[in-house]
């Protein structure tokens, strides 16, 4: 495998391009995924298209040039319409990647996912498959305010028939995206916009990462921290800082939040006896509370203290820079919680 560093955005772009080369039924559909439809000066001399946007973040730049407007399809701003069309196309032979520009727009796109795509196979007695990848964007930190900054993967994760993956780094983003496209079910692929510029080692080759498997980022025996997406970096910072005090933290990147990897998390808790879950979602009815409830049920006897969750507060995402910073879980907040959990440990070891 070749070693090279690319950004999180490039990794996803590359995954989409490779899957589109491999499988002609893969299409990309969404608002301004190319941009500039029917603008003459964006047609090159050889008849190929340039894009005006390539997605609002520029993530899908170049795809329309290689694959044409028949496979990189700009839609009107009509989320219900094109998500319904993506479900219909998925049920009948295409393998669409449909982009929801911000996960906050799910209000207009939800029915095709919730009531149609997620349930068709079940309602049809197993006689349909819906190989649909929903690419969307979550997360606070960009000053994008209450309707462009939410973390809503947990909402999708509450729907039977939908898988939800949340990559935390460029390598995972590419491998999970290719796995999502290959999957014969509705897979929501939720990208944190604050990770777009993150660079990391990404092989050029086509590879997949198994959906539903967590990644043990670092091993430790004193405290388990389960983290999602951008929060994995927070977990690692906490592990570094506690490591200085001799506390060995195991960091688990959940990678998939539905179905999430119960086995890996429970095995870890059996070893450490302590669990913190970090999730940027609002604090109730989310992935962190789900992990906590399952661990409390299945590993209660192994716990040396209460399970702690560190989430965003139960508020909308504020706009002002200082309020937004206070909103997002960070290492200091996790450390305050961790101190309580490991106080006995530190007294004994230091």
């Amino acid at each position, binding site marked *: 495998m070749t070693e090279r560093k690319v950004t999180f955005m490039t990794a996803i772009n590359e995954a989409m391009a490779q899957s589109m080369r491999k499988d002609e039924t893969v299409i990309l559909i969404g*608002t*301004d995924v190319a*941009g*500039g*439809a*029917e*603008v*003459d*000066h*964006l047609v090159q001399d050889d008849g190929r298209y*340039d*894009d*005006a*946007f390539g997605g*609002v973040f520029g993530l899908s730049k170049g795809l329309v040039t290689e694959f044409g407007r028949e496979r990189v399809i*700009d*839609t*009107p*701003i*009509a*989320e*219900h*319409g094109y998500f319904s069309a993506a479900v219909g196309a998925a049920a009948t032979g295409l393998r669409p990647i449909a982009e929801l520009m911000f996960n*906050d*727009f799910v*209000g*207009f796109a939800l029915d095709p996912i919730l009531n149609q795509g997620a349930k068709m196979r079940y309602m049809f007695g197993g006689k349909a498959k819906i190989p649909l990848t929903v690419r969307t964007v979550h997360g606070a930190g*960009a*000053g*994008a*305010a*209450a*309707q*462009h900054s939410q973390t809503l993967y947990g909402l999708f994760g509450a729907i039977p028939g939908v898988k939800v993956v949340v990559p935390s780094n460029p390598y995972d983003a590419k491998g999970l995206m290719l796995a999502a496209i290959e999957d014969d079910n509705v897979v929501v692929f939720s990208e944190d916009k604050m990770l777009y510029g993150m660079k990391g080692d990404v092989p050029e080759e086509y590879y997949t990462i198994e959906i539903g498997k967590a990644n043990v980022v670092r091993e430790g025996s004193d405290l388990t921290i389960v983290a999602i997406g951008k929060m994995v970096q927070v977990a690692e910072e906490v592990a570094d800082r506690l490591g200085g005090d001799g506390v060995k933290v195991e960091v688990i990147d959940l990678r998939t939040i539905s179905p999430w990897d119960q086995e890996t998390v429970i095995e870890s808790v059996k070893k450490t006896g302590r669990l913190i879950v970090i999730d940027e979602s609002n604090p109730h009815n989310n992935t962190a509370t789900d992990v906590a409830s399952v661990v409390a049920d299945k590993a209660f006897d192994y716990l040396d203290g209460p399970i702690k969750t560190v989430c965003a*507060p*139960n*508020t*909308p995402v*504020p*706009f*002002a*820079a*200082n*309020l*937004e910073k*206070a*909103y997002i879980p960070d290492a200091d907040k996790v450390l305050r919680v961790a101190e309580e959990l490991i106080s006995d440990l530190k007294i004994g070891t230091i």
Partner: protein
Amino acid sequence: MIKEKTLWIYQKMNEIRFFEEEVHRTFGKGLIPGFVHLYAGEEAVATGVMALLNDEDYITSTHRGHGHAIAKGCDIKGMMAEIMGKRDGLGGGKGGSMHVADIDKGMLGANGIVGGGFGIAAGAALTSKTLGLDHVAVCFFGDGASNEGTFHEGLNLASILDLPVIFVCENNQFGEGTPFRYASASETVAERAPAYNMPGIRVDGMDVEAVYEATKTAIERAKAGKGPTLIECDTYRHYGHFEGDEQKYKTDNDPNKDRDPITEFREKAIKNQWMTEKQAVEIEENAKKTIDEAVAFAEESPLPDISTLYTDIFA
């Protein structure tokens, strides 16, 4: 007669333009977080409509909402502070550019959701009808929003209930980076109105007087209990969809590209003796001063107190 409103219109047009130019500069300096969508170029629409509204009338706005807010009478200092995320902003710094609002002025908010305002405006009109209040509601929306399903639901509902609402489409030719001519099966938005059993009027959205006259007719119809009107204003945005947009989709042949609604109104108003050259210059200077003061106010305003993160969730 638009003549009586000329000075007010010209004042508001200039305030909007200077405001947006300042926001453009301030954003460029990195003092404004997030996403900003500028209204410059479309001033004739907001002012032509709002010249006929009172504080008690409601409007719903869009992500491109600064112009609507100014024309509806929102405090300009409070707007600038809001856009910079400061304590003295209209929303305490918690909403930002895409959520500028002042319900006391009848401004039901800029909106981060394209097509989010159709039903809300219908609801404000329902309040007026139910309580017998003689107020109207205006829903501003873009050509992009006209292709959302909410367009259909909002217009149909307003029509069957004969609600006093006016749907004002600001067709600036592009929904984000996609031309309207590609995104819409109908050539115009206005021509869809007969399907909802309401008048559909297409006007030159760079001409305040045209917008004003169409709005006047629509308000009369609404207040007579005859229901909604759809007005499509053909316009253009001078800046990109958002600040930072390369605008690769724009062409030299775009209609209205080289037009400026403020210059056009200035010439017309002076020629028709609705306004003197001296008055025009005074208004321009005053507007510039108003905006400069707003910027200074906003820059001096502190960040909000952290405790406000947790307030205003429930009544």
